[in-house]
């Protein structure tokens, strides 16, 4: 018997030749590594106030110190360990909630669909950041509460996407064939539908990681996320407001947010282009923020 290679119908990553996608993936991965290694590679304790205050970058402190004598560089890399995992958690939870509700709406239709879709309309009608602010204010300021608040506003886009995809596949011949063979709705969704809709959902999720980081840092910046001693990029930028002359306080955390968000967006864009060349944006990158 010939030992032929079995080609699985994979997501073709041809467009990964797109340089922006590779650059994005490298930067995003680097930040994730930094996030994990933060306690090991930080030269100082990010919370210790034992250095000279407002010291300019250079010498012992690469990125200077803040108004309380804390090392900005150490705070920056431990901030990666705070924001990035929470942003990933937020996206994973939104995908879970959104895809489950969207699948149910799309598969069962009728009043189930109506109910779920009207709820998503309701949530989507609110301005995202303002609704998240209200929820974070109501729950109290903490990073986890900021995640919950962001979760409430971020799942509906997944629900809508999934619902549309499931609706399109529900009456396809192979799903109907499965139903005729006695598949339960859940088996149909899991075996026949899920493997065929996972690609677009992953693209949306990768594009959303940047948005999630921006939203969480934004809430912290407004004082609705991380509580004071925590090294979080948004609250670091917020602390810098009082010390405008010390540019390093705001610029470095700002740059950290910028690079992470742009990197994840490049990855998402490259994934989208790889999956669907028709929606390719100019030179691989696109305005998604």
């Amino acid at each position, binding site marked *: *018997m010939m030992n032929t290679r*079995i*080609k*699985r*119908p994979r997501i073709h990553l041809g467009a990964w030749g797109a340089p922006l996608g590779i650059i994005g993936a490298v930067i995003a991965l680097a930040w994730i590594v930094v996030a994990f290694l933060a306690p090991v590679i930080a030269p100082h304790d990010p919370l210790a106030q034992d250095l000279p205050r407002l010291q300019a970058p250079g010498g012992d402190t690469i990125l200077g110190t803040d108004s309380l004598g804390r090392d900005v560089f150490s705070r920056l890399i431990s901030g990666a360990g705070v924001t990035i995992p929470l942003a990933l958690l937020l996206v994973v939870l939104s995908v879970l909630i959104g895809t489950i509700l969207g699948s149910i709406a799309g*598969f*069962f239709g009728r009043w189930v669909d109506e109910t779920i879709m009207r709820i998503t309309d309701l949530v989507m009608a609110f301005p995202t950041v303002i609704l998240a602010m209200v929820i974070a204010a109501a729950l109290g300021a903490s990073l986890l509460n900021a995640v919950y608040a962001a979760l409430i506003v971020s799942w509906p886009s997944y629900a809508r996407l999934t619902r549309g995809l499931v609706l399109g596949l529900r009456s*396809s*011949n*192979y799903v*109907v*064939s*499965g*139903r*005729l*063979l*006695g*598949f*339960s*709705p859940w088996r149909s969704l899991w*075996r*026949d539908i899920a*493997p*065929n809709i996972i690609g677009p959902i992953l693209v949306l999720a990768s594009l959303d990681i940047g948005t999630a980081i921006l939203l969480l840092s934004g809430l912290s910046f407004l004082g609705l996320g991380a509580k004071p001693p925590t090294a979080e990029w948004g609250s670091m930028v917020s602390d810098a407001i009082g010390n405008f002359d010390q540019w390093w306080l705001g610029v470095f955390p700002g740059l950290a947010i910028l690079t992470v968000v742009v990197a994840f967006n490049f990855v998402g864009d490259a994934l989208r282009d790889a999956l669907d060349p028709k929606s390719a944006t100019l030179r691989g990158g696109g305005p998604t923020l």
Partner: protein
Amino acid sequence: MSDVTPAAAGTLSGVRDVLTAVDVTVDYRGHPPVRAVDGVSVSIAPGEVVALVGESGCGKSSFARAVVGIEKRSGGTVHLDGADVPFLGLRRRGVQSTGIQMVFQDPNSSLNPRRRVADQINDGIRTAVARGDASSSAADWLERVGLAADAGRRYPHEFSGGQKQRIAIARALAARPHMLVADEPISALDASTQTAVAALMRSLSLEAGAGMLFISHDLSVVRRIADRTLVMYQGRIVESGHTETVWQNPIHPYTQALLAAIPIPDGAGRLPLAPLEEHRAAWTQVIPEAIDRELAA
């Protein structure tokens, strides 16, 4: 089982029918509403192949889907082995109703592109086992439909249209159905594959003792594989009976027009004449003698 509707259209064999459809009606809502199938009845015995022919839009696909339960019936009944075939709603289909299976027209959409072929045939085998029938192997089914036994490891995109249709047939038959409904299973295939797949479907369903309803607009293939032929026009059966009788001596003007439209490969290059509008009025007439025609002596 005494609840079998006896009013069904007559069958040629004396065997108890596996499928009995009586006065099936399908309506499509809209402006104006469309009655796609208007009171069609058919009974099919085990091992019998019944063809349903007609032009595009005559309602033959709607009837096929209504028989299986994919399309909602607005009237009439369908019984499989004496038990009602319910509409395929959101609930899981009962074990008894899995005795009716379907093969679709488009081979490219009838298989899940992201699951291995053997896994999909195993779904059919599992259905047969759940009904209490004997188990079988995907490799065996692949060989029976003329594919390599180890083709099961592959994914559908590695097969041609005809091969995909063979796999879809294998999956449907692996469920050991008592009734197989094929909705234009060969019209998406090229000419040389069409006959082979049609012949395969006949031999396999005969072997399994299953009845088959074969929807097609290809009359020359139908003549080769169908025991009985039903001719449908505008949602109604205008002529039915033994395939040879209908073929040799059509009574209804629509059947005559349909048979006259088959190109003859005699090298003369003659194309059949297109039907005229005034003919269409005659095609809707009801001719009772054209229904249930027996085999000519």
